[in-house]
């Protein structure tokens, strides 16, 4: 187990380093950061002095090494647009996105798991078809448009919920539904196939033969085993939600990390962009490593990597 643990953590670190090299290179090749700071109509001398002041005249790998050595110590640089430390900008915006993300994953689990269980208990019935079509729609609906649709129905027509803002829990209901819906299809499908597989197994037949109540068979025996892969997918979906938060926060005017990312992209604010990209991918890398390790802990067969 220890060997597996070490290998998995080393893999996670090397992936993180590769992602940071790739995105750092991509962002610096895509634009001249000095021009991005100075603006399109700055003179050549202004741009040149900015280039030297920020160190953009150095070779790219030196700049990357400099960035990396500071980043591992928690120094993410200064945002040229906001004029603040990137670290404090992120710390400011993080709580809203964390709140949105956790609400959304809870929403997705609360909707996806029961739908999957019901669909598996009554396979090929109307209920099964209905929950499958929920999944199909959830996959196809453009999340920004779904958000506008909800605003139109709930805020404009029914006047139930605020269309934007961060006051109270009501402001998070619609963003939660939109962001959570993205994860429902995967969770629902996986629960359904997992349950179908488990329900066909011998120990479930034994449980029925013992005369156990259906509720006990479904929840205690079947769901507990079927839910294991769902947990790891949910962890990955939770990390994906951070990416989706850009679109959702823009629609509902929430001032979280997603909208910070969006603003920094519109202002060509490279240090902020770079930091948020690394932060989002770190979430993904950590979550998938954790779910792998949890799976290996539960099922020793996986440990042979």
């Amino acid at each position: 187990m220890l060997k597996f643990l070490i290998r998995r953590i080393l893999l996670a670190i090397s992936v993180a380093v590769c992602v940071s090299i790739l995105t750092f290179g991509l962002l610096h090749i895509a634009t001249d950061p000095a021009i991005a700071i100075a603006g399109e109509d700055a003179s050549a001398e202004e741009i040149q002095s900015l280039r030297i002041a920020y160190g953009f005249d150095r070779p790219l790998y030196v700049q990357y090494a400099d960035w990396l050595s500071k980043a591992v110590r928690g120094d993410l640089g200064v945002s040229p647009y906001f004029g603040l430390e990137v670290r404090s900008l992120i710390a400011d915006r993080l709580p809203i996105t964390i709140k949105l993300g956790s609400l959304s994953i809870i929403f997705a689990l609360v909707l996806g798991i029961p739908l999957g269980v019901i669909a598996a208990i009554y396979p090929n019935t109307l209920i099964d078809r209905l929950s499958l079509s929920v999944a199909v729609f959830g996959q196809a609906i453009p999340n920004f448009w779904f958000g506008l649709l909800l605003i139109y129905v709930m805020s404009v027509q029914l006047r139930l919920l605020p269309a934007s803002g961060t006051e109270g829990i009501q402001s998070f209901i619609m963003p939660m539904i939109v962001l959570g819906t993205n994860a429902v299809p995967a969770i629902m499908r996986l629960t359904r196939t997992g349950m179908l597989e488990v329900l066909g197994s011998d120990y479930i037949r034994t449980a029925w033969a013992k005369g156990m109540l259906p509720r006990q068979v479904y929840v205690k025996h079947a769901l507990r085993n079927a839910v294991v892969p769902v947990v790891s997918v949910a962890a990955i979906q939770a990390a994906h939600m951070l990416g989706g938060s850009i679109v959702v926060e823009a629609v509902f005017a929430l001032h979280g990390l997603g909208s910070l990312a969006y603003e920094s992209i519109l202002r060509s604010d490279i240090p902020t962009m770079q930091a948020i990209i690394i932060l989002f991918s770190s979430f993904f890398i950590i979550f998938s490593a954790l779910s792998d390790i949890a799976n290996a802990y539960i099922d020793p067969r996986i440990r042979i990597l």
Partner: protein
Amino acid sequence: MSDVSESFEIPKREAEPWRLLVGRMLHHKGVMIGGLILVVVVLAAVFAPFITQYDPLQQSLSGRLQPPFWMERGSADHVLGTDHLGRDYLARLLYGARVSLLIGFTTALISGSIGTFLGVLAGYFGGRTDSVVMFLVTVKLSIPTILVALAVVQLVGGSLQIVILVLGLLLWHQFAVVTRATTMQIRGMDYITAAETVGCSTFRILLTEVLPNVLNQIIVVLTLTMASAILIEAALSFLGVGVQPPTPSWGIMIAEGKQHLFFKPWLVMIPGVALLVVVLAINLLGDGMRDVTAPEKR
């Protein structure tokens, strides 16, 4: 002698595989419904100039924000009404379909080539090649797609070509995973061994033995990737960082209609429904193709 002739029965000719495939496709509801919708949308996009006489860029200050025909004050002149600049909404919708389909299809082709190349190599050679490719896939999966696409497209400058290129480079992982798994399965098959024994070059084996046998899986992933490329393009354009106005893109139409959500909701609803229907159709087709091409997995 007569006994012998009786024992030699002429075996019934088995139907050719592609005939079976087409037969299964014709009986699969998802494939038929999705395919039919998609064909209609493609035809509408291709023959847009014959369906509407309006230019999607032609503004008309006097005819702004006209409602569609089924609403009060709507007219048959502009079947789906006009937008805030007086442009015919049906024309913008039809020409917008061109943008969506073009981006979806070309993106899927680019990422399909990259992913298939990597996946087939990894599956065929295994060992170190496989480890490197799988590491690349893990790195790719760890990159937040929408965020990086937004950042790069904005920094380079939004245009149709840039969006296609960036999305093509960001959506190849599924192709790699699927073709790798299939190649591994067929790697030990007799016909591959036979080709090796005969002395075929590796390149030839990959091209004529392996590739045709992973084609089914590629087509399935191609459709699903096309759907996600269309959704991501719409999101980028909605955020103002993608295809640039006045090009009619459904994402841009929704973004422009957003200002009028309170009083003219149809400006947002019409392109949104179009987007939903197209993506739904492609997904139905893709899921259906998976059922049809892998009958053993049903």
